[in-house]
């Protein structure tokens, strides 16, 4: 049984999806989704424990050995990402029950959970697989279900947002297939470990360089790197609250994982950074994303849209860590992957609580909410502190490593920009705090009370995680550090 854990990680949610769709009642579908997300979380923890004690796990799908068969390969980085994705899933699913009943019509709820579980399947599949074409298949499973989930939003603009995401996402995915095809032409292999050996033997070659370009653009589209982020703000703003919390915390993180996999494991550090000089492209884009998107976030009137722009900026931090191409920088980037999932998860879930009671997340609608919904707004403030990077929160840990990485390279202007963008985060979080705590609400509206516990408890679990991993960061830094060392090609 335990030998099959890598494939069960994907099979269980995949089988749960049709069951959810067949369930007539929303609550039954929710029960299935809950059982699935908790089981996958348990499996992910088991896998991480095994990888930490025994080293990478290789699983031959159907008994066909690599490189002919499809290999599922789990190393420290993928196990860590698995824990992030399933952990967020395990927290968001209990939260979904009430939130989804309020925001989505009853007949569509079983289908909602089917799409939700499928999205989880795709994200987990990308993370476990060691086969590049398999990556594309799982990428499309997760993306297609994500488009459907976003299109379920109440506002009709959710439909256009989903359509825009579909167009841009499909272009990204197609670019990735073209890149994979060109690698296959040159090497005749689709297995990641095999490819890395064959590509290293081959050396820089025009087809490989073009494949590298296609993959860079395709993956950047998926992870919403600065000029390719246009799909993201609308998608996050108009999607149902549960979907925003889940996708914001997982989808872009898995895309960043893909970037690490392709550029560090397959192409190798030497080819990506010395020959192709990827850092010269990524670093400026990451810095522009951090500064301009933080600035844009300040001027938003819809809080979900504000957080969406902030997400693009935070993705900039992860890419910045990667483009430093040093162990410290990469540790910072991987840490931020984990930490940002916690931060944005808790912030978007707090906004879901507001949506549940108030029916709007416009900043004007939050007047006086500090008194009416004290726990919700306290969760928002705590998440906001973590986003800013106040000590004792997770946001501080990852920014600390990123700044160390920048200073190690002697790039103090980069470190200064990281600090400046943190100050911008203070500004946009403060705008919400000011309205919620220091402005009177519009008269006595007794219908607005504290959100139900079913929403508050999951939100606070994530907020608590923000502080727990901010105070005792030994586990996360250890895993991220070891993953970074193995990506850089140093013996872990």
């Amino acid at each position, binding site marked *: 049984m335990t030998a099959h854990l890598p494939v069960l990680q994907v099979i269980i949610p995949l089988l749960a999806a049709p069951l959810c769709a067949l369930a007539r009642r929303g609550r039954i579908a929710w029960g299935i989704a809950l059982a699935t997300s908790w089981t996958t979380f348990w499996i992910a923890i088991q896998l991480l424990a095994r990888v930490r004690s025994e080293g990478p796990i290789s699983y031959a799908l159907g008994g066909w050995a690599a490189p002919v068969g499809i290999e599922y390969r789990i190393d420290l980085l993928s196990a860590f990402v698995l824990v992030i994705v399933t952990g967020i899933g395990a927290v968001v699913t209990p939260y979904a029950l009430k939130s989804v009943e309020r925001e989505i019509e009853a007949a569509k709820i079983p289908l909602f959970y089917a799409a939700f579980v499928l999205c989880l399947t795709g994200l987990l599949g990308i993370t476990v697989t060691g086969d590049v074409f398999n990556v594309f298949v799982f990428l499309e499973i997760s993306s297609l279900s994500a488009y459907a989930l976003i299109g379920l939003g109440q506002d009709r603009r959710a439909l256009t947002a989903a359509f825009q995401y579909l167009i841009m996402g499909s272009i990204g995915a197609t670019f990735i*297939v073209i890149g994979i095809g060109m690698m296959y032409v040159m090497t005749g292999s689709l297995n990641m470990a095999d490819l890395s050996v064959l590509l290293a033997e081959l050396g820089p070659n025009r087809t490989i360089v073009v494949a590298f370009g296609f993959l860079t653009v395709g993956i950047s589209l998926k992870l919403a790197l600065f000029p390719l982020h246009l799909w993201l703000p609308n998608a996050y703003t108009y999607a149902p609250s549960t979907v925003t919390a889940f996708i914001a915390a997982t989808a872009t993180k898995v895309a960043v994982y893909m970037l690490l996999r392709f550029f560090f494991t397959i192409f190798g550090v030497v080819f990506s950074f010395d020959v192709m000089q990827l850092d010269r492209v990524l670093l400026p884009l990451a810095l522009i994303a951090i500064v301009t998107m933080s600035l844009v976030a300040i001027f938003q009137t819809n809080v979900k849209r504000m957080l969406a722009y902030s997400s693009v900026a935070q993705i900039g931090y992860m890419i910045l860590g990667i483009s430093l191409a040093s162990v410290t920088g990469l540790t910072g980037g991987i840490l931020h992957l984990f930490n940002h999932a916690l931060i944005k998860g808790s912030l978007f879930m707090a906004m879901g609580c507001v949506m549940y009671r108030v029916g709007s997340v416009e900043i004007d609608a939050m007047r006086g909410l500090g008194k009416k919904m004290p726990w919700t707004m306290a969760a928002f403030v705590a998440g906001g502190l973590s986003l800013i990077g106040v000590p004792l929160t997770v946001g501080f840990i990852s920014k600390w490593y990123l700044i160390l990485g920048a200073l190690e390279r002697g790039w103090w202007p980069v470190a200064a920009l990281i600090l400046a963008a943190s100050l911008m985060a203070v500004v946009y979080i403060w705008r919400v705090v000011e309205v919620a705590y220091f402005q009177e609400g519009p008269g006595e509206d007794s219908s607005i009370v504290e959100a139900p516990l079913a929403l508050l408890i999951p939100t606070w679990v994530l907020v608590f995680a923000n502080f727990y991993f901010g105070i005792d960061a030994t586990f996360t830094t250890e895993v991220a550090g070891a993953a970074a060392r193995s990506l850089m090609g140093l013996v872990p």
Partner: protein
Amino acid sequence: MNVMGLMNYWAFIFLMMVGFYILISQGNLVKKIVGLNVFQTSVFILYISMGKIRGGTAPILTEGDPIYSNPLPHVLILTAIVVGVATTALGLSLVVRIHEAYGTVEEDDIHDLDLAVAGGEDQSFPVSGMDARA
């Protein structure tokens, strides 16, 4: 360079650019889906061409040792075709829903309708935000 010998690859590049251009230039959502389809189909040609060996037969086990085409890219592209069909279906169903909600499938009209409803409350750019304050 043997231009004619690489005919399939030229077709791939041509179709890819045509599809991509339609995606960027057309404001009609249905036409955008058409563009996306052309774009994705071009990749099928890339994959199918790379598996072909001149003079090779179909990859069927027979007597002797014939030269046969590589079946793997063809199988891969079967998967990609399924993905393409799913994308098209989802895209078109979204277009139907958009038509129900807005009464139009032209991107410009939808944008105008959104602006009219939002009444400028929903600014996407900092510039307009500053104008509203001034």
